[in-house]
């Protein structure tokens, strides 16, 4: 306790003492050299400099320094008849003016080059060749980023231990009589089968065709029972578990009849559109009543492999919006459309027959009805 006071007091005293006497302890300044200075008048200085300039101008002509430009001036050959500049300009003789041009009387223009009537030989003009612009401009390759740091950095502390052999993690069992030594799980470092550097990777190119967004699946609501959702009184956790089970169960249910799954790729949107256009070309609603025109029907049909509908299989699956009589009229018009335009077979890919073996067509006359 007291020691601290003593130390503090000593420190303060030292500081005060340094402030008071520290300046006297500074080293002595360096000694200055003294020299004599003579003063001359302006006239004397002009006389001295004029004599010096006149002697320099009479011995050499110095062209004014051109402005410093980055571009080099093109070589201009001297004209053979060009008169040399007049060196007898009286202004040049005024040597007392330092801004005047120097005396160039001692300079002679270069001898004019002899004119030659022989025209220079001209080489054959190079064959004109059109340069086609590349169809696709090459994309600039991005400059590879330096992969090596300029300065070595110490490797970070490894999170996991890399070992030559694989060993499982061992945790001491509390109930064991002889507690085992705890051991972390280790494994040799995983490696790829080949080394592929970034430089060897193929540059990405733009796709040749844009991917069309997948059409929203049409879920016909006609003729289907839409059960209202049951009240859910479960907790969140239970709800999540039940939803997970339900989803997994449904997946397993749908995955069970894998043997009945149609083989081959599904019909493309273009193939489906072609079928739709083919049917609607024969769907004549001109002779339907206004009630039938307000009725949507779903018609099922089984198809032959040659694309023709099995007439006997055409059936009414469901209807919406009208009476039974109206649904019957609408179904008969739809059936006529399927049979008429399917007489020679619809243009469907045979390799995807399993996909269109059974078709459900929804005939919705909403756009055709009288409004």
């Amino acid at each position, binding site marked *: 306790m007291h020691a601290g006071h003593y130390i503090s007091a000593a420190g303060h005293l030292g500081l005060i003492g340094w402030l008071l006497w520290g300046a006297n302890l500074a080293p002595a300044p360096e000694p200055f050299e003294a020299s004599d200075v003579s003063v001359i008048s302006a006239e004397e200085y002009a006389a001295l400099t004029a004599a010096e300039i006149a002697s320099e101008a009479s011995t050499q002509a110095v062209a004014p320094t051109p402005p410093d430009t980055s571009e080099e001036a093109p070589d201009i050959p001297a004209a053979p008849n060009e008169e040399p500049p007049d060196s007898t300009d009286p202004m040049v003789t005024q040597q007392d003016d330092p801004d005047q041009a120097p005396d160039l009387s001692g300079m002679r223009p270069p001898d004019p080059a002899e004119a030659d009537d022989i025209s220079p030989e001209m080489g054959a003009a190079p064959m004109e060749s059109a340069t086609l612009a590349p169809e696709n401009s090459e994309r600039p390759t991005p400059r590879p980023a330096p992969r090596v740091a300029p300065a070595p950095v110490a490797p970070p502390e490894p999170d996991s231990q890399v070992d030559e052999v694989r060993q499982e993690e061992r945790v001491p069992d509390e109930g064991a009589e002889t507690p085992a030594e705890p051991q972390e799980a280790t494994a040799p470092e995983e490696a790829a089968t080949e080394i592929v550097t970034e430089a060897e990777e193929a540059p990405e190119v733009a796709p040749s065709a844009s991917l069309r967004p997948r059409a929203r699946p049409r879920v016909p609501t006609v003729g289907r029972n839409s059960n209202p959702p049951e009240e859910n009184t479960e907790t969140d956790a239970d709800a*999540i*578990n039940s939803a997970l089970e339900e989803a997994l169960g449904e997946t397993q249910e749908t995955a069970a009849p894998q043997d009945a799954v149609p083989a081959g790729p599904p019909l493309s949107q273009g193939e489906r559109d072609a079928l739709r256009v083919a049917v609607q*070309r024969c769907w004549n609603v*001109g*002779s339907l009543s206004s009630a*039938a025109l307000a009725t949507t029907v779903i018609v099922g049909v089984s198809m032959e492999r040659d694309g023709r509908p099995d007439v006997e299989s055409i059936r009414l699956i469901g209807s919406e919006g009208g009476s039974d009589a109206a649904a019957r009229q609408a179904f*008969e018009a739809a*059936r006529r459309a399927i*049979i008429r335009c399917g007489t020679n077979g619809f243009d469907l890919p045979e390799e995807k027959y399993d996909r269109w073996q059974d078709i459900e067509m929804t005939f919705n006359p909403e756009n055709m009805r009288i409004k």
Partner: protein
Amino acid sequence: MMAGFMTLFAALTAVILAVAGPAEAQERGPLRIEITEGVIEPMPVAVPDFVAQGGAAREWASRIARVVADDLTGTGLFREIPSAAFISPITSFSSPVQFADWKAINAQALISGAVEVEGDGKLVVKFRLYDVFAGQELGDGLRFSGTTEGWRRMAHKVADAVYSRITGEGPYFDSRVAFVAETGPKDARRKRLAIMDYDGANVQYLTDGNSIVLAPRFSPDGQSVLFTSYRSGFPRIYLLNTNSLQSRALEEQPGSMSFAPRFAPDGRTVVYSMTRGGNTDIYTLNIETAETRRLTSSPSIETAPSFSPDGNRIVFESDRSGSQQLYVMPVGGGVPERISFGQGRYGTPVWSPRGDLVAFTKQSKGRFHIGVMRLDGSEERLLTASFLDEGPTWSPNGRVIMFTRETQGAGGQASLYSVDITGRNLKRVRTDTGASDPSWSPLLK
């Protein structure tokens, strides 16, 4: 925290599976496509001559088939395939139909019929309707019998059955039309009350033409006709029995004029307009008790009343708003509700037999139109346009409207036209004279 992450992961997984599951399942079901666009064109139909079963029936076999074909093609919904294109004519009513032959000429419907004259002189007509492409019969075959004088009605019955079976609409071919037959120049025109088949055949005149007659209206049973006559020098309402041709005045109040009558659906009540003291209002009259009741009492002109099919409301025209518009009021009177709000003047409203539409005459920008609108005034559609179109009347099935069209000028003449409520198939109804003020009868019994 780990438990919370697992819960969130499970929830996301469930959502993804729930969304992906049905889509995948749908891929595995039948191929589904939706047809939303079709074509509107007449259906090709083959109507070969009916088979004459016996020599006496030969006279009717072809004529009945022609009337059937005319009825169907007259709707604009069917197109008859000429007989020259037939590959295998029907020679026997009971023989199986060679559908391939009819399919080859694109006949979508085939009517096969037979005619027979029985020993008592009755004419028997039977027919079957086939869906050629489906290769099956549409509905059951029908058989009608009647006198030989009624052969046209039997043909209309056959056509009605075919029309209803294919289109789903109610029948209307076996019906009649009352109208005013007009002869002579415009300034001295002779007007007679007449009735005819819906297609203009079998015209029968009911009055002699000594007095001007206007606006005939059929009774719900089709046995009588209301009309307005100037027989007494003033317009009066008369009731005419179409069988006995006996008529009587229904309303004779001194100093008044009555006109624009129309039956209520019950057939006992008549609604009409009466002008008394310079004011025109709407009244009802019980034709059995002669009891009258005033339904409107506005200083404006209220006229052209028409009952709703259920008999609970009345649509009429009134200029109470300053221009001629359409209003609906309860059958017992009360505050009318305006239903027309378009530009122009609306008049002669007629309630559709289906109850869903009102047909009217509209005058706008110097042109006359026949149009339809819903009872709330929505979905107004103008079906025609000409120098003068007026006086619509509904077919019994509510699909077709007949009206008067008058040409311009001193030599202008009135004639009857019909149009589908879609606005298609506008055509003139064949009459031997000028004709106006049509009233379509209910379907004959």
